[in-house]
């Protein structure tokens, strides 16, 4: 199987391969932040910090312990999630701008810590050996992308996800519905961090070199832009937003220094013409179902139950 993929990848231009992997990692990070900001409504400006914690944790695990890559990925995710839960407990009591500033501060602290730690090689950064996996890395990245999409979709359409959306909508009303707001906020923060940690680990092992400065404020804003461009709370939106913004710097390379102008202009246009993002307010699943002329499953169930009720003689009034 591994040979098959290796053979297949042989046909792809390494430059394009790099872009494809970058897109994959971008999607993973955007999906993670979308759980926190899009689904739960908690603005975080420090998502890159969790990416860097993941990247350095997994790098150290590989270099010092030589842990197998699959276990490494999972463990990294859990460690990052634990850090997020720990930091989330105090700071998630804040809302809106205050929370954003706090996450921003946290990201800077993480960066400075990694710049000074002996084990992460201080400002020189770490070289990470390519993991010895049965399947080549680009394929691993995209398997993780698919897994993340599936998991996040499940979260969106569950009791757990509804609680997160309730927290986003109105915290007081959510509490009055029996939802422990603080707990769900911290959990969503930890899930976002788990995904970012895994993304960071993949980044570290694919790039082969990581430096604390790679995960600064600009990276956080980058990830946030992907989520906002695609549409807050939309999974398909995050995928599209991340794809566009991960590939854009490469396609705009010919414009050299002017590409940031295009980038900024794009976001301004978005804010004017589609403030909810490219996919905001629409569900991808529903769109596909409608295109196929089918109704969502929930709607079918409801209609079935209603018709059963009418038949038994005590239908809607």
């Amino acid at each position, binding site marked *: 199987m591994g040979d098959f993929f290796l053979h297949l990848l042989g046909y792809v231009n390494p430059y394009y391969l790099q872009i494809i992997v970058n897109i994959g990692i971008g999607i993973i990070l955007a999906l993670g932040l979308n759980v926190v900001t899009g689904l739960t409504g908690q603005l975080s400006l420090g998502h890159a910090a969790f990416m860097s914690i993941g990247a350095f944790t997994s790098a150290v695990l590989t270099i010092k312990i030589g842990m197998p890559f699959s276990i490494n990925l999972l463990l990294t995710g859990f460690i990052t999630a634990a850090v997020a839960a720990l930091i989330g407990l105090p700071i998630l009591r804040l809302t809106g701008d205050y929370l954003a500033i706090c996450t921003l501060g946290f990201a800077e602290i993480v960066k400075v810590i990694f710049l000074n730690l002996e084990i992460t090689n201080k400002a020189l950064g770490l070289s990470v050996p390519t993991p010895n996996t049965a399947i080549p890395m680009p394929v691993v990245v995209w398997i993780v992308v698919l897994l993340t999409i599936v998991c996040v979709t499940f979260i969106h359409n569950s009791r757990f996800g509804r609680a997160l959306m309730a927290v986003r909508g*109105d915290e007081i009303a959510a509490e*009055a519905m*029996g939802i422990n707001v603080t707990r769900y906020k911290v959990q969503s923060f930890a899930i976002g961090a788990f995904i970012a940690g895994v993304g960071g680990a993949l980044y570290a092992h694919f790039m082969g070199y990581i430096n604390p400065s790679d995960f600064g404020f600009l990276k956080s804003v980058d990830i946030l832009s992907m989520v906002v461009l695609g549409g807050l709370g939309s999974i398909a939106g995050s995928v599209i937003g991340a794809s566009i913004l991960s590939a854009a710097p490469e396609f705009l390379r010919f414009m050299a220094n002017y590409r940031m102008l295009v980038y900024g202009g794009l976001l301004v246009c978005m804010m004017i013409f589609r403030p909810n993002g490219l996919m905001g307010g629409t569900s991808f699943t529903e769109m596909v179902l409608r295109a196929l002329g089918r109704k969502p499953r929930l709607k079918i169930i409801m209609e079935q139950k209603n018709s059963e009720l009418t038949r038994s003689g005590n239908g809607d009034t």
Partner: protein
Amino acid sequence: MAILELNNVTIRFGGLVAVNDVNLKVEEGTIQALIGPNGAGKSTLFNLITGIYTPTSGSISFKGKAVSGTPTYRIAAAGIGRTFQNIRLFTDLTVLDNVLIGAHSRGKWNLAGALMKLSPWVQKEEGALLDLARECLQMVDLTYRAFELSGNLPYGEQRRLEIARALALKPAIILLDEPAAGMNPQEKSELMAMIKRIRETGVTVFLVEHDMKFVMGISDRIAVLDYGEKIAEGVHEEIRQNPKVIEAYLGKGAADAHA
């Protein structure tokens, strides 16, 4: 048996005594009303019962257990549902999702359940929650709106949706904060029938309302609050003729003229 009991409940905000030494019992299976002029402390009392505020002194017990000091979400899950004076729906979600969120505490599966969404256990629970949500929507005649965004509903229907959402908690008691506010006479009479229907399902109703006709037409017992103090309690006639109540609503001269 009193399902909800307030004993000498007082809350101060700085120098302001919003609720002062209130004693109140809500009997199980009744419709209890709480009336009073603007700023009398009615909504504050609801916020005290649901744990949004903690009383400065006094205690509140629900089904014989003290609830003051417990977090709001625990009180809700224990069986106290509520609506809000200024509607607080999740406006960017559908009507059905709003009610499903209300049914939150009737489910168990959390993150693990989300990741095992396709397993029969989780599917079964989702089905049960959906059944419950449908029942609640039917109770307020909103089934036909199930898949619309709740923010797009007209005002009267939003109020009804709030009731459905609170019912999805399967509460033992439901607190309605001005349920008839902003409704026309037709809607009000429909709402009255609805509230009676809710009581018939075994849910105790405790409501705050300004509309006297509405309150007199529906409630078993009425308590009157003025300047944070309970000034009267009883059945319709007692309240209607109580000079203190007339004074609070119409002024001192009116009370004398009436006597």
